[in-house]
């Protein structure tokens, strides 16, 4: 299920504005890759280009290639809708569908995929996904209640359950804990550690301790100045990045000298 992602010479634009320049990296399957860097350096933009969510923004486009197990996502004839069904995403702020129950939120993506499923099969998907997101015990007695009635941390885990219900190959997380308290953050981090058994995970985070705790590989993004494009400064094993980074800027950022 988990797949390897090869990014090659990727330039990301908003209209004429080059937001992220010349990214090449390899994201290993069944691992957690963290992307760190100061605000506005293009981490989230890059993350969104991995499942073609970038082009949802008017004027958003890319050059270069993003290949998942050899298949370029940006090939002519590749439907972005199919890409997004295979590469799930969890957003910065919890965003369950406010008009849907917990149950319907979890199966929202499954229902989209068009496969007709029996009620019992759907029930299985809901239980498995909520178990997977460590939320089952908290909500199993109120699956028909609105998802918006949960706490922030629970809502975020509901969003993760919704994303893994469709069994994606890759899970992208855009600062999934930035709107959560420390306890909920811990729950999500535990969850990430479990999920990496099955999924390729890419996580953008502002919290460097978090990157150090959850990830196997870390990429450091930086920006030369306002209006300049963001770049990947270096990428390596998380242990190496946080102990002996090969670039001075990375060391400065990690040790808190800027950013």
């Amino acid at each position, binding site marked *: 299920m988990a797949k390897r992602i090869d990014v090659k010479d990727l330039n990301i634009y908003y209209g004429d504005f080059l937001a992220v320049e010349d990214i090449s990296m390899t994201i290993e399957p069944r691992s957690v890759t963290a992307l760190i860097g100061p605000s506005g350096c293009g981490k989230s933009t890059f993350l969104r280009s991995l499942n073609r*969510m970038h082009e949802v923004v008017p004027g958003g486009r890319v050059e270069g290639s993003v290949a998942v197990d050899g298949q370029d996502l940006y090939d002519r004839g590749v439907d972005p*809708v199919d890409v997004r069904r295979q590469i*799930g995403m969890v957003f910065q702020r919890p965003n369950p569908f406010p008009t849907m129950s917990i149950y319907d939120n979890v199966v929202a993506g499954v229902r989209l995929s068009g496969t007709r499923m029996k009620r019992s099969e759907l029930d299985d998907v809901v239980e498995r996904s909520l178990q997977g997101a460590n939320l089952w015990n908290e909500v199993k007695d109120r699956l028909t209640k609105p998802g918006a009635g949960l706490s922030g941390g629970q809502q975020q885990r509901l969003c993760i359950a919704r994303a893994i219900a469709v069994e994606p190959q890759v899970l992208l997380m855009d600062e999934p804990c930035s709107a959560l308290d420390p306890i909920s953050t811990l729950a999500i981090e535990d969850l990430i550690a479990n999920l990496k058994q099955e999924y390729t995970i890419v996580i953008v985070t502002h919290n460097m301790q978090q990157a150090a705790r959850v990830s196997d590989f870390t990429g450091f993004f930086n920006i030369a100045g306002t209006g300049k494009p963001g770049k990947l400064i270096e990428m390596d094993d998380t242990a190496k990045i946080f102990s002996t980074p090969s670039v001075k800027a990375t060391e400065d950022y990690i040790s808190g000298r800027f950013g």
Partner: protein
Amino acid sequence: MSSPSTPTVTAPRKQAGRNGVQRPGDRLFSGAARGSGLLILVILAGVAIFLITEAWPAITAPADAIPGGEGLAAYVAPLVFGTVLAATIALVVATPLAIAIALFITHYAPKRMAQGLGYLVDLLAAVPSIIYGLWGFQVVAPASVPVARWLEENLGFIPLFAGPTSSTGRTMLVAGVVLAIMILPIISAVCREVFIQTPRLNQEAALALGATRWEMIRMTVLPFGRSGIISAAMLGLGRALGETMAVAIVLSVSGGITLNLIGSGNPSTIAANIALQFPESSGIAVNTLIASGLVLFVITLAVNMSARWIVKRANRSGDGR
């Protein structure tokens, strides 16, 4: 803080009552706001009292004194039926169209085109109703005749299209369609505002799950906008119920209650009937017309209140907010 002599500066908590310190500006503004709010109630009550007192002679009059000679209920019933029928046709035609227009403007059209289109739709609302009436009479009515013939031939088994087809085209169907065009701008403008408010996060959540644009709209935009759509439709319905000139010009009135939308015998609507009859009426006939106006007043009030109730219920069951 501007008056240094007051002791509130040193001990504001003891001084402040339940509502805190009252400053002149606050008091002035709250008074003005409250006065304006009350004014609405006074106007509404004034209209209701006028309608009831003026309608009273007709309500209490013997049946043969009422125009038509069969009493007030028999006089008003076809008018109520015509009013509701015309407004219903208008609503059924206009609402889906308005929703589609609003969705196109907010979610499909390129940005520049969307602005122009939205502006055009708003402009439709600025056209005076007499113009719509003339246009309906001169253009839509004649153009509708072949369509009505086709409906009669092919769908004649439905009572709505039973025929015989009117040769002038000044039918209930055309009146309803003209009304639909008139209420289209208000419905689509309100829907547009509501659809634009759909949280971007929810829309992105749907897209990230692999929803197509239409699926995204069905999952997020429409549920989010549901109560807004209902309010918009009710606003349009209110306007359609009360519309006078366009109906008075388009509709060829003769006869009573009939479901046949394409025939030449149509019931009039309350508002159009008042406009047409009022100049030539005197005595009890005037009271009768005002009584029909009272009925219209009650209908519109009922429509608005039920709309509020529906919106409230939809909000409560829909989401946890």
